[in-house]
């Protein structure tokens, strides 16, 4: 097990806090004149997503968390678990609903995602920044309307609902930014 001291704390460092892996968001060194120094640290619990503020005495140590990000291809959902594969090694991983979280509405088979593994178990799934999905249902728009003012909701083949311009029709493939959930363009 590796330990890091407060002086090595930096943003993005993964540590164990109260038995859960957490990532350091911010560490501020606080020292009253000639007194004891502290580090005020903001962390995100990687299991629950909760942000925690914690004070440490400078020089205290935390165990580092065995957390790695790995690129994997999404294979399929068996109704309970989402299955992924590392393309180079064909190694497969199964993520539960908690780990997949909001990413589930963007997952299309064969897309490359980033899986965060903790002790080799998927902790979180990050979908690609842009995905191309097919519209399975949207109101017919007025042909020739390109102003887009406000748009209309469209349901995609993964179940996600995004706002699209009025001219976009059912059956078309569109590009969506998964970070904002916004329509980017039609895909020819």
């Amino acid at each position, binding site marked *: 097990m590796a330990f890091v001291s407060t002086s090595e704390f930096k943003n993005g460092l993964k540590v164990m806090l109260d038995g859960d892996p957490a990532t350091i968001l911010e560490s*501020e060194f606080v*020292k*009253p004149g*000639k*007194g004891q*120094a*502290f580090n005020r640290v903001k962390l995100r619990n990687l299991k629950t997503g909760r942000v925690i503020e*914690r*004070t440490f005495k400078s020089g205290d140590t935390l165990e580092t968390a065995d957390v790695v990000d790995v690129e994997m291809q999404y294979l399929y959902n068996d109704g309970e678990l989402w299955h992924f594969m590392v393309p180079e090694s064909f190694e497969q991983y199964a993520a539960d609903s908690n780990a997949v979280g909001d990413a589930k509405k963007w997952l299309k088979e064969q897309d490359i995602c980033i899986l965060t593994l903790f002790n080799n178990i998927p902790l979180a799934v990050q979908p690609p920044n842009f995905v191309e999905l097919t519209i399975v249902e949207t109101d017919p728009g007025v042909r020739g309307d390109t102003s887009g003012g406000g748009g209309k909701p469209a349901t995609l083949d993964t179940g996600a609902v995004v706002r699209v311009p009025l001219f976009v029709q059912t059956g078309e493939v569109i590009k969506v930014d998964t970070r904002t959930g916004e329509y980017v363009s039609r895909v020819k």
Partner: protein
Amino acid sequence: MSNRAPSDWRPSCSPAMLRRRAELLRKIRQFFAEREVLEVETPLLSHGTVTDPHLSVFSTAYGGDPSQRLYLQTSPEFAMKRLLAAGTGSIYQICKAFRNEEYGRFHNPEFTLLEWYRVGFGLDELIEETDALLRMVSQATRNLAPSEHTSYRGAFLTHAGLDPLDAGLEDFADCASRHGLQEAAEIGGADRAIWLDLLFSHLVQPRLGRNRFTFVRDFPAILPSLARFKSNDERLVERVEVFLDGMELGNGFFELNDPLEQERRFDRDIAARLDAGRPVPEKDGRLLEALQAGLPDCAGIAIGVDRLLLGLNRLEAIAETLAFPLATA
């Protein structure tokens, strides 16, 4: 803190900030020239060093010989007191000071300190003069409210709802959990000094000196540093700190001049360092000899010049006041 990209050669502060620093130094020198306080220089590199349990010192070896240990000073206080004992009268110095392992938004391990000593002054006169200096240098850049004066106890009662002198360990823990510091009990333990540092720095200090200078005086005797005990209340020492926007700018004392008490504090510090498994420096024998020869009654204060520049210009971090903070030094 390692070497970074080649583009890192540029200074981290603006050219305007270099000019403001020069202007600030000019005003400080003018202030002391008008008051006939003598500017002095003492070594940055010295044989002796401080024993403060919470200070970490840079050291080196003369000629690479480990028996010839030299320390980068954490403050010029010992050398300046030797000058005072030799009869210089009131003196001031603008110099670099070094504190290992202190690095953050308001800390750089190498920083600029203004330190001065006034022979014949008590804490009241020192506070008055510090306020006059700070208000003079702030005039052109910030429109501050009149300075505020409080006792350590008063500041604690107002901002943390706790009496720092009477409180027991349970009171400290209650206060901490009331303010959402659940982990405090583990940090503070049975150490009253750590409890005070923790609660002061987390609950009190951030609320001090909003758009004004706040002077906090009369510290508990368990945080004595180099201050004298208060003559009418042995639970307190004659120590003052000054804050701006929740940031500590300086620390001053009615200076301890009793060599026996000074040596007791050195011994206590050294015991604390041994307990904590930290390196133990030798007591500075030359300071003790100077105190035996006789330090005149005097009061002195050290002000962090980089932080003063930061506060006056409402900057976010000390790096914005420095040409080359440690990361690019």
